[in-house]
């Protein structure tokens, strides 16, 4: 008798509003994007302190590359320190759609529209993160220590993801958040590899090996991967190994392969609630990509060329994102 009573209380999962799914996905994507921007800025300014004024043209390229990675247009030609200009634009730039501030404004805007779908903890955390960049004292804090501000954005984002994991039911809503986060992470990681690989290749002859190592370490740091890499390869800096690690590492949550697996699991979870038993277009794209990465060999990737290979991944991710939009957001 008791069991029958209980079973009546178990209700089927409620599908979510298409608009809410859309906002959930973008909220999560923008938070992830802000984190990447902050980390890239932090690492770039740090590595340039390490290598000093050794190669001014390389320095300028490094700063410019941040704009490429984050899909921002070139800055207008003016005098002044390129580093400061890029940092300003990517941090507070109002016209720069992917500046940290704009990412957080849009993440919060999306969250505000689905406030009843996320937990109080997530909302409060995102709100505090937003005010830390949009409050009265944000600019002054930035002047005093850009590093501290970047670090607070990074921890804010990680806290947000942790809260998402721990305070939200792992239902469709959570899957949409995971999907947004993973797709963003794959995209940025691929672009970091592509861009940095090309720059460092073209400067290879001019750099001493110590300086070259510092640059490759910075690439790993930009993807939050330096410590994991060192444990794997005992600290040996080798461009091919770095790329292999960032693309193909099975168990490391920042690698492309791992994130593709997460994205595929998320879309499967979403589809299971909405259309059980079917396979949807985004799931097919991500499933194939997952299999490809699971069985990839580094020699094949090198034969194709690393930049080419990661470009294909980006294209697939882009197709998957469009398919998600078609299937779930545009009813």
């Amino acid at each position: 008798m008791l069991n029958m009573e209980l079973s009546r209380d178990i209700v089927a999962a409620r599908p979510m509003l298409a608009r809410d799914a859309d906002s959930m996905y973008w909220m999560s994507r923008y938070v992830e994007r802000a984190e990447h921007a902050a980390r890239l800025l932090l690492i770039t300014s740090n590595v340039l302190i390490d290598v000093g004024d050794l190669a001014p043209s390389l320095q300028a390229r490094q700063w410019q590359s941040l704009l490429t990675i984050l899909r921002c247009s070139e800055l207008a030609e003016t005098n002044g320190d390129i580093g400061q200009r890029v940092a300003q634009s990517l941090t507070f730039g109002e016209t720069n759609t992917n500046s940290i501030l704009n990412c957080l404004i849009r993440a919060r805007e999306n969250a505000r529209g689905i406030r009843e779908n996320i937990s109080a903890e997530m909302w409060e955390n995102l709100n505090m993160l937003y005010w830390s960049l949009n409050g009265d004292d944000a600019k002054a804090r930035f002047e005093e220590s850009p590093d501290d501000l970047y670090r607070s954005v990074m921890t804010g984002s990680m806290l947000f993801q942790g809260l998402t994991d721990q305070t939200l039911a792992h239902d469709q809503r959570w899957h949409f958040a995971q999907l947004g986060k993973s797709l963003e992470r794959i995209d940025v990681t691929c672009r970091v590899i592509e861009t940095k690989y090309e720059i460092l290749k073209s400067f290879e002859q001019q750099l001493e090996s110590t300086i070259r190592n510092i640059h490759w370490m910075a690439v790993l740091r930009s993807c939050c991967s330096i410590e994991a890499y060192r444990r794997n390869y005992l600290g040996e800096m080798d461009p091919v190994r770095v790329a292999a690690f960032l693309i193909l590492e099975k168990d490391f949550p920042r690698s492309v392969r791992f994130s593709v697996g997460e994205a595929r699991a998320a879309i499967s979870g979403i589809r299971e609630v909405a259309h059980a038993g079917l396979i949807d277009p985004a799931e097919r794209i991500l499933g194939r990509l997952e299999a490809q990465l699971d069985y990839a060999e580094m020699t094949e990737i090198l034969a194709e060329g690393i930049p080419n290979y990661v470009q294909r991944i980006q294209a697939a991710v882009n197709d998957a994102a469009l398919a998600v939009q078609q299937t779930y957001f545009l009813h």
Partner: protein
Amino acid sequence: MFDNYQVDGLFDEVFQASGQPRSHYASLVSRLKGLGLPAFERRRRMTDVLFRNQGITFTVYSDARGVEKIFPFDLVPRVVPADEWDSIERGLVQRLTALNLFCQDIYHDQRILKERIIPPELIYGAKMFRREMFGVRVPRGIYIHICGTDLIRDKDGKYYVLEDNGRTPSGVSYVLENRAVMKRVFPALFSAYRVRAIEDYPYNLLQCLKYIAPNHADDPGIAILTPGIYNSAYFEHSFLARQMGVELVEGRDLIVDRGFLYMRTTAGLRRIDVLYRRVDDDFLDPLCFRPDSALGVPGMMNAYRVGNLALANAVGTGVSDDKAIYPFVPDMIKFYLGQEAILPNVPTYICARDIDRKFVLENLDKLVVKSTNESGGYGMLMGHQAPEAERAEFAEKIKEDPRNFIAQPVVQLSQHPSFVEDHFEGRRVDLRPYILYGEKVIVMPGGLTRVALRRGSLVVNSSQGGGSKDTWVLEEDAQPVTPDTTA
């Protein structure tokens, strides 16, 4: 702390004319004194940060995007003794019951018009009278499910009803959030009192919405309809959806198909049976009301009229909170219930009546004139404070469209100490309790005490720079015992 506090010949909620606190405030005052100003100031800053981080804000329309503001919160709670509350509660139940009977009557038999209790032209002239609702049977015969009634106190401390809000009253989320913040910032203050809990409001609201669900639905789909995130009350819409665990939808999420309302989900369409709509009648259905509305759903009125969809509040309740109908509420109570009104109205002159209009025009400098269809402190003349030119302008408006205006004598609202900059000063307050009408009528014990933040101002609306404070209704037999009370 209160050494320089002025009562100024008004009714002060806390202090008697002698400067002694009233008995139900005595232990609060002594605790505040024990705390000291610097500690109080620290806690005030703490609340600002809390409100900001939790995004408890409302939107002011000053530019295209609107500016998000914190609803100013005043940390000194208002205390209402049990016996005082008892008569307020009875008065509100009586009033809402009569208002509902009135709506039912107006849209069906119109007995109250036939018997000449209310002049028919006032009803037909009301902007919010919806002829589309005539003869429509609404679920359970309830029209106003959620009501917010504004109460004020005059110089003698007597409570009056200033107006009823029977359309989409807002503010209840601030009542609940204010209480939550008070408990976090000032837990010790509560210990001297037994304050009645208000936290079951969302549960009661949900029960009320379930109660009106159409019969076809075992497990009704319930949602709140909001105009969207730029609406000034968006925080509240989202707050209530969260508290009740229901969906928050916008017009663009909805579609009517074959007389049923659906929302678009990731798994296709899902039916909605009950809609707590926070969108005005005018915008609900472009096929029926304003054709330019993008906030509503074409065909919604049809689904409503055939009984496939329940709306809270019903369409057309605006006829009952029209300011020119308001003076007749005591008559309604007598007509429908055979009772005398427990809570009196503020005396009101109806400009549509010749004799009243003449008096109003001659005494503009002593009266408050209000437009009958505006709310939020807009379209109002404070005759005793306004310059001559503004009064003349209003006189013209009244002559042009008398139906649109009423006038009332200036009521000197009661005052309550507020923390201003670094000390306490008296500020005028009102009180908006919230009443739910479902299976039974439930009055939330407390309500929104709104505070006029400027000295001497009588306008408490948030859109006009008002703030709010927590309101404590005390349990019976819970009068605090404090030996140092002299009152």
